[in-house]
């Protein structure tokens, strides 16, 4: 091979690697912060969108760092959808800045904060400071765990897609209606599954589950963490164990990314069962989409309550 030929091959290769990523796709390129948002977005956008999530479902979204590779992802996005309520506050601002993509800059068309579509729970009242632990001043950010909020999220996503891609608006509306019907009938199914259980009381690790418990009428008797984000004190655990024994609470509900030693300690003192469950789509291998997440959670919850009733 002559030098010239080689040179041409190399330069063509270089040109392609530089240019190929820039060639625009027909689809809207969407980056989401969580796999739940990615799942809902895929339902609404279908073949008109290309969706990728930044965090994995088994990760704790609050503790992610702004990895430069995330910036590369966001650099090519037409739309960045995030959960908000300060869930991603530790890394999203750096990510957006590092992405150098005018579309997704604050105030841009391509930035969607889904929390404006829902009504948050547990908005702290009164003075807010960090002596109260890792609190979220705008309210509990784990709102996707109420499937009714899933409907609101989907509706906001559909609206945004229609705005960005008016040509395919009818398709997005159809997809939204289809998703809504599917999710609504599922909600009825999940509710009746859990309604059939008379005594639904649990202890949770963190306030992660508030929306889920609220929707399905499950009562949380206490949290392992005395203050959010702070490891519990032995005193608090002892008090909680007494309370659980007194009130016969048989289930400790924890996200599967939380450390297990405190739950195990409490379980050993109370004989309660630890339900370590995924908080997001992709949190375990079986859960591959948003609806699948609730199928999994509801089934596991119901089974745990029923086995408790028998014993």
């Amino acid at each position, binding site marked *: 091979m002559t030098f010239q030929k080689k040179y041409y091959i190399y330069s063509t290769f270089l040109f392609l*690697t*530089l*240019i190929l*990523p*820039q060639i625009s796709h027909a689809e809207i390129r969407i980056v989401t912060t969580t796999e739940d948002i990615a799942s809902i977005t895929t339902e609404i956008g279908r073949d008109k969108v290309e969706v990728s999530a930044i965090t*994995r479902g*088994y*990760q*704790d979204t609050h*503790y*992610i*760092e*702004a*990895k*430069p*590779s995330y*910036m*590369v992802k966001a*650099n090519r996005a037409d739309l960045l959808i995030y959960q908000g*309520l*300060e869930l991603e*506050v*530790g*890394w999203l*601002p*750096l990510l957006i*800045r*590092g*992405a*150098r*993509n*005018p579309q997704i*800059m*604050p*105030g841009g068309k391509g930035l969607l*904060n889904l*929390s*404006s579509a*829902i*009504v*948050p729970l547990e*908005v702290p009242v009164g003075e807010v400071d*960090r002596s109260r632990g*890792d609190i979220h001043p*705008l*309210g509990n950010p784990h709102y996707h765990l109420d499937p*009714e909020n899933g*409907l*609101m999220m989907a509706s906001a996503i559909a609206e945004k897609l229609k705005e960005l891609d008016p040509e395919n608006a009818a398709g997005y509306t159809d997809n939204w209606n289809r998703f809504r019907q599917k999710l*609504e009938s599922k*909600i*009825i199914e999940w*509710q009746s599954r859990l309604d059939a259980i008379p005594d639904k009381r649990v202890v949770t690790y963190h306030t992660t589950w508030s929306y889920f418990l609220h929707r399905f009428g499950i009562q949380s008797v206490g949290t392992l963490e005395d203050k959010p*984000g*702070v*490891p519990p004190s032995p005193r608090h655990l002892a008090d909680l164990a007494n309370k659980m024994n007194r009130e016969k609470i048989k289930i400790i509900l924890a996200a*599967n*990314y*939380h*450390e297990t030693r405190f739950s195990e300690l409490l379980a050993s003192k109370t004989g309660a069962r630890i339900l370590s469950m995924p908080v997001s789509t992709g949190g375990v291998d079986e859960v591959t989409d948003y609806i699948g997440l609730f199928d999994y959670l509801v089934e596991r919850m119901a089974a745990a309550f029923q086995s408790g009733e028998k014993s």
Partner: protein
Amino acid sequence: MMRTRYLIPIGILFLNCLSPAYAEETELVKEKIRKLEQRLEKLEKEKNTDTQAPTASRNTVSESSTSTGVSRAFNPAISANVLALGTYVDQGNADQTRETRTGMRIQEVELVFSSWVDTWLKADLVLSIEGTQTVNVEETIAEILVAQNLSFKAGKFYSSFGKHNRLHTHAFPFIDPPLVNEDIFGEEGLNEIGVGLSYLLPLPYFSELSFQFLEGSNDVQFNGKLNDDFLYLANLKNLWDLTDDVTLEAGGSFATGKNDVNSRDYDTTYVSGADLTFKWKPGGRERHQTLIWQTEFLTSSRDQVRAGAYTMVQYQFARSWWIQGRYDFSTIKENVTEEKNRWSTLLAFAPSEFSAFRLQYNRLNHFTTDEHQVFLQLNYTFGSHPAHNY
């Protein structure tokens, strides 16, 4: 008459109850009611969000005006960091002018203000109070996105040379900077007034190219004699995801500019550097563990040629605990009396992401003398939530 009017529907209802279809129908009715309730709740939510959206301002806007009508809604995000330091060294305790000497001090207080100026400009201002006396503008940066992938900044900032030089004192992995950074750029690092462009190369992995055009006032290396003697700096930073949890970063830096040496042979300074970092940072249940191995090499040439490197390992073994080790050295060519090397180890307890106690031990070898140093630092940040740099 009245009675019979009521009796008829009651009778029908009664008959209905007897019918076998009753159970099924109530289920249907229940379902319908549930659906209607949900729709109502949804509508109420929609109504609420319409009048109150967007969420971010929901809580603040109403409370943002004082009784005098002065708006606080656009105040920048403010945070403060304090470094309190206790030091023990086993050498030179009679010398009060030493930089590292036994005693207690406030190492630094830093105030950070951050906000959008308008729809274009993002501003960051970092004021540092070294000790408790003088206030310095450590950084003041106005940044703008010029075009897709290309950002521009102007002001005073830590220049993008290598890894360690970009860090503020409170973010140093050890309490003191590496010997080579201190010897080549001085105590304050390469912190200059100027402008910079940074371009995210359109590659499948992270690759950022930065050019900076700076005043060149650093008096250890540059500080050219003429007013139009500037400093030119280039940096390439690459990062690859090896797995979801492991990254490899490699970078190279180069800076050149006139200096104040009175000899035509040596009146230009060249500084170059290379860095390599492995980081394991799982995001799942093991998220309270981290392993970082970072190595950086720097060399400068003017009338003297300096070179040095550090290599360090940081391991977070439990939620609040870090253990770290470092070896670093700094040399001047053909001058053995200036040779320094150091072994360091550090144990950190960080009860939250906002505070840390750090205990560090150094064995510093300077030519023929050995010095033992012990530091205990309290490092805390309050105010707006700081971002976690990767």
